[in-house]
């Protein structure tokens, strides 16, 4: 029996991947779950395991080609003898590779138009037609999902008022530059990751009633604690004592007190999440990724630091898995590492809160009537005002500040 090797689900917002190296040749014997081929997505590289033991039949998709979720990569003949050579394919002419793969049905004509106008690749849409063809209804649904109702209808380039049904054109709507300038412009296609980031950020802005509240925190106590114990900590836990662990802990304390910040809106309902998966935004050379420290409230500060350190290592090696980045309930973003003084982070939808950290700087502050220099950091909390009240947001940030200024509160869980 022949079993198809299909592109597995690669996680939210990932709809296609590039085929990397095949580890096996047609005719090779394979064990069940043995890795067969690499798939590279914008974020991660995954290995596709053999669905069953047998002999690799044909390879439908060669290295370098782009495939969508569910596409057939090749097949395995279950229990076949390794010696049996792969049957020669009738279409083994030079041009056969150019022929569209059987599963790669082009979108229906009307669907194609809708997709182009919405700036969506056909491969990003799950087709409901025969053999996965993207039909008009699929395209219309995908375009509606990509477009949010609050978005003001950008007008077509010229002043004609097109019929109200005319979709908003996304592609290359820009008027041509004057020739001298045009020569010095470079048009670069956005990577899928960039497009996804762009779409999600805009979605968040369009759906949430987003608002930012600020506070500042005196880092003296945390820094003193860190200085006192950093060597011992590293020796004992095998990881450097940074600031992030303190911030995660402080946020957990505040999230437990203000559950709305850890909640999300779903239609008419609010979903309160009685678990705490804290995303920590880190920049990599491929763009921003947000690995999630799961069940952060059950981890000690050392375990949190260890988890974050492991994420950083794996991100640099490109081995961060999709599952590492899913399911966050709250996010912490640290613009301070780049030197930011103050910023208003955008929510990581559908989450309702994101904490922005900034650079620590000695600033003149007044303590007991005296002007003194203290290591200060501005804090920003962007929140969805639809479910988080102003009082709650401010209280949240004050609690984070209090915890950091007096780390003894961690011990007492105050």
């Amino acid at each position, binding site marked *: 029996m022949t079993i198809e090797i299909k592109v597995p689900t690669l996680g939210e917002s990932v709809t296609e991947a590039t085929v990397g190296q095949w580890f096996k040749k047609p005719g090779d014997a394979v064990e069940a779950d043995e890795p067969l081929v690499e798939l590279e997505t914008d974020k991660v590289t995954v290995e596709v395991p053999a669905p069953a033991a047998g002999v690799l039949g044909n390879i439908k998709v060669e290295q370098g080609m782009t495939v969508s979720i569910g596409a057939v990569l090749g097949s395995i003949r279950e229990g076949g003898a390794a010696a049996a050579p792969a049957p020669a394919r009738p279409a083994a002419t030079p041009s056969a590779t150019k022929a*569209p793969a059987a599963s790669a049905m082009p979108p229906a004509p009307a669907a194609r138009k809708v997709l182009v106008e919405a700036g969506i690749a056909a491969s990003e849409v799950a087709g409901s037609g025969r053999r996965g063809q993207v039909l008009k209804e699929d395209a219309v649904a995908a375009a509606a999902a990509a477009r949010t109702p609050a978005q003001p209808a950008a007008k077509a380039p010229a002043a004609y008022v097109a019929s109200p049904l005319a979709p908003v054109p996304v592609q290359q709507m820009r008027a041509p530059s004057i020739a001298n300038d045009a020569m010095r412009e470079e048009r670069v296609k956005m990577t899928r990751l960039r497009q996804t980031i762009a779409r999600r950020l805009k979605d968040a802005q369009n759906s949430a009633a987003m608002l930012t509240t600020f506070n500042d925190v005196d880092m003296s106590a945390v820094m003193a604690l860190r200085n006192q114990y950093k060597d011992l900590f590293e020796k004992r836990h095998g990881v450097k004592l940074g600031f992030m662990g303190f911030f995660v802990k402080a946020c957990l304390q505040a999230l437990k007190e203000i559950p709305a910040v850890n909640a999300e809106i779903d239609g008419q309902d609010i979903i309160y999440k009685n678990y705490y998966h804290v995303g920590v935004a880190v920049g990599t050379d491929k763009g921003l990724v947000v690995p999630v420290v799961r069940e952060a409230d059950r981890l000690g500060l050392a375990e949190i630091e260890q988890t974050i350190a492991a994420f950083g290592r794996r991100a640099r090696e490109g081995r961060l898995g999709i599952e590492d980045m899913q399911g966050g309930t709250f996010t912490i973003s640290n613009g301070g590492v780049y030197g930011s003084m103050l910023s208003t982070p955008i929510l990581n939808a559908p989450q309702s809160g994101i904490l922005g950290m900034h650079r620590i700087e000695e600033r003149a502050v007044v303590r007991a009537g005296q002007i003194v220099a203290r290591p200060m950091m501005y804090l920003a909390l962007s929140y969805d005002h639809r479910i988080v009240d102003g009082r709650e947001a401010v209280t949240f940030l004050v609690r984070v500040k209090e915890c950091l200024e007096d780390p003894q509160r961690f011990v007492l869980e105050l």
Partner: protein
Amino acid sequence: MPHDLIVIGTGPGGYVCAIRAAQLGMKVAVVEKRPTHGGTCLNVGCIPSKALLHASERYEEAGNGFAAMGIDVKPKFDLAKMLAFKDEGVKGNVDGVGFLLKKNKIDAFHGSGRVLGPGRVEVTFINGEKKVLEAKSIVIATGSDIARLPGIEIDERQVVSSTGALALASVPHKMLVIGAGVIGLELGSVWRRLGAEVTVVEYLDRILPGMDGDVARSFHRILARQGMTFKLASKVTAIRKDKGGCTAVVVPAAGGATEELGADVVLVSIGRVPYTEGLGLAKAGIALDERKRIAVDAQFQTSVPGIYAIGDVIAGPMLAHKAEDEGVAVAETLAGQAGHVNHDVIPNVVYTFPEVASVGKSEEDLKAAGIAYKAGKFPFTANGRAKVNRTTDGFVKVLADAATDRILGVHIVGAHAGEMIAEAAVIMEFGGSAEDLARTCHAHPTLTEAVKEAALGVDKRAIHM
């Protein structure tokens, strides 16, 4: 600026572009040189030739086919009435376009258009007056003109183009057709049915250049059986006119002994050339391609931003429906939508009897491109409806990718082929496979069952063979 768009030419490309643009909210002006709209197609092309093809086909059928069905008639025909019938059909169509333009509030200017530059078109009216129109965009849809042979003057009486061949005063005894393309074979068929001895001279060694070779060979045999004479691989180098008629000097294309052929009427139908004369293209800086067609980009924009061109005046097959789709695409692009024409799926029909219709790639195209394909072929002799109708000439051929089964081309010779090709175009536009077509239920008894059987034939499992 009074208009959003000016369209020069109201043939199928131009008037459709104008109407689509008006539907999308633009204020549109059209400039038309003829007193009536519709261009070559409606006035002196597709529409009048179809009227004569229809009438002459009925006449021939009444004379040859009715007796076998038990109908005993001796048909007579009145050429003047037949031409009047044709003119009436033309009038109905051109008036229809005029009505549609009015209905869509499109301003029509009857005169010659000349492009002065981006957004500016000068119209010269028949009385010599001039007027400059201004708009944001211009679409050039001036179509094509008949191609002429050097040294052979077309007088539209003895030596005619397609235009003259639609209005001959009497049926010629002998007719010589130069060029075995669509126009020559259609008009040659008309006059052969009405009694002319028709000889077709073609430079290439085959008829219907560009169409599938298998189709052309089969169709050649059918036409020869109907009484049309062919001189392939030959060219006409000169025509001598005298009182009684003309004498054409015919030379084998490869060289050799000349031959003289007498004819009352010579039809020059060697193709058509883009109509770009007097449009002021060079002055406006609009570039032409190597074959003197207006060069356009994927959005049909010429080398001058804001000026577009569609239809016969640009590259691609000179077909009304291709021009129409391009007109729609330009109008939609101007409205900020994603206008698009799939040039790989444009049907092509020869309206003779039987008809010839094709869409997509021919076997020759596929071989040249090195694409592995499978062919399924089904003759109308094995189709029940064709049998009782006694229209068993021809076949359906479906070409599909050997690896993916995707349909790459469909070719039909047979009665109503021009209507049947539509289902092939639809399934190809959806990227369908031969099996998809074969698994689609077709009504019985119809000629379209032959299409289904040919699709089954790709997998070597036709039922009725």
